[in-house]
């Protein structure tokens, strides 16, 4: 029994890692008022390029850098369209996803070695291996947290840092004000454009890091649609975490946990079909939204989306 629980925890955390990176990236983007629906495309591009680089060079560091630069380029395009050209953010984001998905699939058939007729599918490369932390990994049950790969350990550090930066530093204060009320931020001397560009791009880099974790660790290798819709799940998780990086972990655990349980149930031959299980994160998100609205109507707290989410800003506009 203990072993079962331990293995469920281990899989949960592993499945959740890519979600946490992407969720935190998107939270930062949305907190400045930019909605980036290009997640799925950016994660796929991150996954395919990370794997290709790892295969050819054997360098994991280089793979991560290349994956991040994919996020950088795609989100910079999104930023340019939405912030400078004031295009509709939903349309631009969806285009990024369509482009990224197609491009990743195309690259998957071109970046491989000649002997595999340039396909990446079916190859293996260096990957992030699990590193057991001495002593900590021997703790019963919770030891599962300390027998993970380096990106998961990175996630343990990223969550509190991302939370701290957003809620305790002056830059975090400024960036939140840009997403809540760009008019106010601007009048207070904060550059709305710079802030939005910066965090759309930084956010995009984290999103594609999430993609890289899939192809370098969770399901090592490249397969078409390796993300399996995780880009969309992240959008729900951002809402689920109420735009708070610290809570990104809950959403990721929930979804990762469902993955893990599903995996176990399948082994055990249980009869709940996978698509039904896959609905749970969304149902949970809806439940959270209802709860939040209810809390707000009670006048207890203001939670919820940044007020200027997906609203473009121009100084001389009313």
């Amino acid at each position, binding site marked *: 029994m203990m072993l079962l629980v331990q293995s469920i925890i281990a899989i949960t955390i592993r499945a959740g890692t890519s979600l946490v990176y992407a969720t935190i990236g998107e939270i930062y983007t949305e907190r400045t008022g930019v909605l980036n629906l290009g997640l799925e495309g950016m994660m796929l591009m991150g996954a395919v390029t990370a794997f290709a680089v790892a295969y050819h060079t054997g360098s994991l560091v280089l793979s991560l850098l290349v994956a991040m630069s994919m996020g950088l380029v795609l989100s910079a395009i999104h930023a340019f369209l939405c912030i400078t050209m004031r295009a509709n953010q939903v349309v631009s984001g969806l285009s990024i996803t369509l482009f990224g998905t197609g491009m990743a699939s195309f690259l998957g058939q071109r970046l491989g070695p000649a002997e595999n007729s340039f396909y990446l599918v079916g190859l293996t490369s260096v990957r992030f291996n699990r590193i057991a932390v001495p002593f900590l990994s021997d703790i019963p049950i919770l030891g599962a947290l300390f027998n993970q790969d380096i990106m998961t350990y990175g996630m343990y550090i990223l969550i509190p840092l991302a939370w701290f930066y957003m809620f305790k530093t002056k830059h975090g*204060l400024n960036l939140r*004000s840009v997403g*809540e009320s760009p008019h106010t931020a601007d009048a207070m*001397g904060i*550059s709305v454009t710079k802030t939005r560009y910066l965090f759309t791009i930084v956010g995009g880099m984290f999103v594609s890091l999430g993609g890289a974790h899939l192809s370098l660790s969770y399901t090592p290798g490249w397969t078409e649609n390796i993300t399996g819709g995780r880009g969309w799940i992240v959008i729900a998780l951002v809402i689920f975490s109420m735009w708070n990086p610290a809570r990104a972990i809950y959403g990721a655990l929930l979804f990762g946990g469902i993955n893990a349980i599903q995996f176990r149930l399948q082994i055990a031959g249980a009869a709940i079909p996978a698509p039904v299980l896959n609905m749970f994160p969304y149902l949970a998100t809806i439940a959270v939204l209802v709860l939040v609205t209810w809390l707000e109507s009670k006048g207890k707290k203001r939670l919820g989306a940044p007020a200027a989410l997906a609203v473009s800003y121009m100084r001389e506009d*009313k």
Partner: protein
Amino acid sequence: MEDTMALQNDLTPVVEMKGITKHFPGVTANNQVTLKLYPGEVLALLGENGAGKSSLMNVLVGLYRQDEGEILVRGTPAEIHSPKDAVQLGLGMVHQNFKLVETMTVAENVVLGLKHLDFIPSFSEICRRINTISRQYNLQVDPRAYIWQLGVGEQQRVEILKLIYRGADILILDEPTAVLTPQESGELSRIIAQMIDEGKSAIFITHKMEEIKRFSQRVQVLRKGETAAVLETSKTTPSELARLMVGREVLFRLEKKICCPGEPVLEVKNLCASNEAGRPSLQDLSFIIRAGEILGIAGVAGNGQRKLTEVITGLDRADSGKVVIQGKDMTNRTPLDLIQSGVSHIPPDRISMGIVGDMSVASNLVMKEYRSEPVVKRGIFNYKEVAKSAKEKIDAYNISTPSQNTEAKFLSGGNIQKIILAREIGACRGLLIASYPSRGLDVGAMEAVRLQLIDQRNIGNAVLLVSEDLEELITVADRIAVIYEGRIMGEVPAEKADIKIIGHMMAGASLKGAAQAAAEAELGEDGI
């Protein structure tokens, strides 16, 4: 423009704006405007709605970029490209629409965007400094409260606090008193005087004539984007200023026919309602308005006025009691039912409740006609008729807009209010409810609004007028009821109304008690 104060001729202005021109699509907001602000003075900036006051000030603080002209601060040319540059020059502005982040605390708002803020700001330290300023200027604000929890008066205090905390010494106040009660605006004048004593200078925008006297030494009048005059406050009169502003004489006293009330149109019986927190906001409230009369509701904002008008218009619900309109029980019916029974509503918050800012002026004007011909035929808009109906209203109400198709949000406050009036009065069939209809309007527009209300009464409609402005209530209403904590404290005929007695009732005294208190106060004054 020559300087009116000989004394100041040899002083360098702290701010000098030279030949500022600012165009927007279809309008010239400022045309070759020159403005000088001398150290240690308050300059009042006056002008009709849309005269370009806010635009000029937005140019000064770097929010708008002028098309022509230059700005000198303390005698040196200043390139103000963004609010950041303005802050560095010591310019601070309280905007007409507050610039506050609702979901953040007072303290967070105060330090937002500050350059010298520590990487990890210490909010206990910041709160301590805010409290010191609060005491020094007698500005009561809880630094840990969230902005959304505060009323407009408190939000205004936060804006002032922000200026002080951030060390601005050139203050720009854009209609800071528009939403304040008389007491709060008295407080503000004291605070500004204190800041001037400390060597700061201020530009003060207002539509209220008595405040110009109270606050300023000089006054500059803008008219259609150009400077109409620069005067010494002590050497001018309200009627001269009004004439300079509007270009014609303005009536401060309105002629009214005697009121001859008919059948009851609105009967409110024992109305009770509660707010979100479940506390009572209307308590056993009753009154009647008859056809052809105006009932004024006086009271300090937040005493249930909003609840009352929203319950009557179907926007909110009553817990018990009755709202009877033209003999029919209309308690807790939908807004559509109420509109169809002839109720029109001029809401207190014109931007968010009165118009759809992103829609054209024409669409906003016909918004109450789209259920019927000729604007709609067989469910399809007839744009010729829309344009025709809109044009009629724009002409009749003298709405100044670049075109029918301009988005309504680009109009000035006075013109937005005229759109609402035109639409609501056009659709009024019996009862007109007007909440603070002249808030933020210039004297010309204010006069137009008041004349319209009186017109409605003269043609036999019943009018419920909610206002904080006692002058307005006395000139416009026939009877004045005073509301306090959701109760009617008493009612007086307007021609016999005594501002002092009403003032006491607004603070919670009964009619009898208020009369007594007022009489005693009078005796006291005589005694001195």
